[in-house]
């Protein structure tokens, strides 16, 4: 089976993905183990990934303030939602975001009310599942794998209360 498109989580859980994880465990990639445990065993401890890193940029203030007010202000950080949690994806995305962000920032070529891009949204929605997989398993199950429920259509405000 091919890795489902646009779903890194699916890939992670797919035979090949799981195999890779176990492979990394097997060769003792400690980082992987630690990350895996932190993320899946205890979400709260992952809070140490500091949102201040994002708010370094004042243009992120709006989202930061809205995050503080949101239902997830105390349970999830920026990176919990906005960064992929497979190893390669994580750093690729960070690099990509870093580039895009600084480019936008230096050129000033971005709208005041920033709109999330499709790719970033896919990342976010994978992260919803990371925490809420069990809850939504049933509603995903009756769907083709390429037509997963879009959480943000109903829950756009969970990360940022407007």
């Amino acid at each position: 089976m091919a890795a489902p498109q646009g779903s890194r989580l699916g890939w992670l859980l797919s035979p090949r993905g799981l195999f890779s994880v176990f492979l990394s465990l097997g060769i003792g990639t400690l980082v992987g183990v630690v990350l895996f445990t932190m993320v899946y065993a205890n979400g709260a401890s992952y809070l140490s990934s500091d949102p201040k890193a994002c708010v370094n940029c004042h243009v992120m203030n709006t989202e930061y303030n809205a995050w503080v007010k949101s239902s997830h202000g105390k349970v999830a950080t920026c990176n919990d939602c906005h960064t992929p949690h497979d190893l390669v994806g994580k750093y690729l995305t960070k690099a990509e975001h870093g580039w895009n962000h600084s480019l936008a920032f230096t050129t000033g070529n971005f709208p005041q009310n920033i709109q999330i891009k499709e790719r970033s949204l896919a990342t976010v929605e994978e992260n919803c599942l990371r925490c809420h997989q069990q809850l939504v398993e049933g509603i995903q199950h009756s769907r083709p794998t390429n037509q997963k429920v879009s959480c943000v259509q109903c829950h756009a405000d969970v990360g940022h209360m407007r």
Partner: protein
Amino acid sequence: QHKQEAQDTNFAVVQLDETVVDPAVWGKNFPLQYDMYKRTTDQQRTKFGGSEAVPHVPEGADARSTVAGQKLEKDPRLVQMWAGYAFATDYREKRGHAYMLVDQRDTKRVNEFKQPGTCLNCHASMAKVYKDLGNGDAKAGFDKINHMTYQEATKLVDHPVACIDCHDPKTMQLRITRPAFQEGIKALKASQGVPNFDVNTQATTQEMRSFVCAQCHVEYYFKGKDKTLTFPWAKGVNLDNEFAYYQEVGFTDWEHKTTGTPMLKAQHPEFEMWNQGVHAKAGVTCADCHMPYTAVGAQKVSDHWVRSPMLNVNKSCQVCHHASEDELKSRVETIQTRVATSRSQAFDGLTALIKDIEDAKKAGAPQDRIVAAQTWHRKASFYIDYVISENSTGFHAPEESIRYMQTATDAVRKGQLALLGKEKADPTAAKAFQMWKEKKAADAKAAAAGPKAPATPAATATPTPTPSR
């Protein structure tokens, strides 16, 4: 694949396949959905929707201990509007899915009028019946049912809409089981530049969350001698498009008893109206509001207790809207009150037009004036009927609902002026009027030639009153 298997074993208590119709059996695998599904027996009113349980003494074949309220009593103008048509004898509040079959079997519209098997398409679990009758080909089975009488056909069914009608028993994916919708959506998509649309392979799940409902909650007509259930979507799904379609094919449902106008009847165009609203534009589906997710323990399930969202505002609306429950209800009621006000004003106009045509006929007004007025009567009545029959009292598309009432009022105006020689006929009505005239001539000829066989009295696509009435 591995994942799929894991989940199947998770749920599978019984093996489901295309032969299992009884929802109770499906309920073994999906008890949460089944329990909710059964609750569609409950009745509760909202300000403009829902339904009331009216006590009913079982009599004859009609074993119902409750029925829904009689709308003809609540607004007697309806009787005039539909004079000469079955709807003028019995038209009730809709209620939950659990009742769809009994309510159809026991309506006067079925018991005192001839109806085709086609009616069952939307009132019973048909997925297996169609397949069985057509030897695996649902379309063939559907065509067969359309040719039967209601009384014959209804013997073949046991359940109201059931799991199998919306779900694939193997994957539980949503699917379309009604050929009429398959054809309808194909025509609609073609009109939007997407040719040969095959709904079961090409629609997204998001679309399917509305399409499964649109198999029934739509305006329809029985096409031609075969009474093939057809959705008038070849030009689009707003009312203007649907009316233009009927005018172009020259279809007529019945002849108005008071005015003699060849009429059109509108039925529950929820899907069409929703399509005109801002929610559809924003990708909000029928299921989002009428089957909202509900957390039951550690699972979220779709609420299969399909009902008015006004009875479940928290889950239906408040995920997306941060306003209070009272505020949301009041927004809905504000819209509905405006639509109802506008509709009632248009309806008064229609009632006046009917009276005017009646008087003009009595007074022997020139025939061309009568006919011109009738063309506007046909239009005004269809437009008003459309908004009356749409079950959200305009919520699904507020400004469009009222725009239709403005067009209806304008048609009434023109009709009344036509009687006085101050307005021409609606040119789009020419074909329908011509066809109706020819049909009547043919009927008269046939009648004069004497009763050759116990033929159906009318060759039209619609049932006409039986003498027993």
